[in-house]
């Protein structure tokens, strides 16, 4: 198994190690929103908010049906 961080190029042999690494390009781990915001110029947080809005809207709709 080989996992490459597309951002900093580091190679890992386990998913756990990849998820724990602090990316040299962003200074954050791939489990932190800041990592994705740094790479996307803040667009990740906007996409995340939109995903939450869709999910919550569906939950509300389902609860009424």
């Amino acid at each position, binding site marked *: *198994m080989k*996992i490459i961080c*597309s951002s900093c190029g580091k190679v890992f042999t386990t998913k756990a190690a990849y*998820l724990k690494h602090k990316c040299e390009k962003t200074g954050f781990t*791939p*489990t932190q*929103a800041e990592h994705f915001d740094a790479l996307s110029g803040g667009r990740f947080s906007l996409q995340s908010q939109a*995903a939450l809005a869709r*999910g919550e809207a569906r*939950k509300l709709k389902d609860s009424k049906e």
Partner: protein
Amino acid sequence: MAATVQINEYNTVGETETANITNTNMGDTDAANLDPVAYPVTPGNYTYEKWQKIDVTAMGGSSAIDNLKIWRTGALGGSAAHLTNARETTYGGAETFVTPIKTVSTIATETMPTSEPTDANLGIGGSLTGSLTAAGSSDYLVHQIGTDGGDVAGSTSTMNYQYDETA
């Protein structure tokens, strides 16, 4: 806090995982983030299949990720066709990885939607109604472009990978 989500791509016989790809360029090499100018597909041939997953690296306090939708916006060049395993009906379940090929795919056989699907078209745990409640991944998304012998130019379009998140 919210879930952190990325797109990963899997390549070569070793299923090398490139995490958080920066593009999904299609071409004549089995690699993530490829340069389509360096690896153009010749007219009449197929690109290498793309094998990708939506990967939730942390739930961030949310309870579920589901309703995965995949589509492309923007036209392809010439008479090229973009095919995928993603589909809203007759979904084939979770695919098992095989080395990506540049001949016609037997897995990516449905035309890639060019607008947002009504319902989920990529599964989790083999089901379109599946959900992730902890860090983990979707089923494989497999897609490929087939070109026509008369096609003379590539194109640029946008792939959309959408999920819903429940707090």
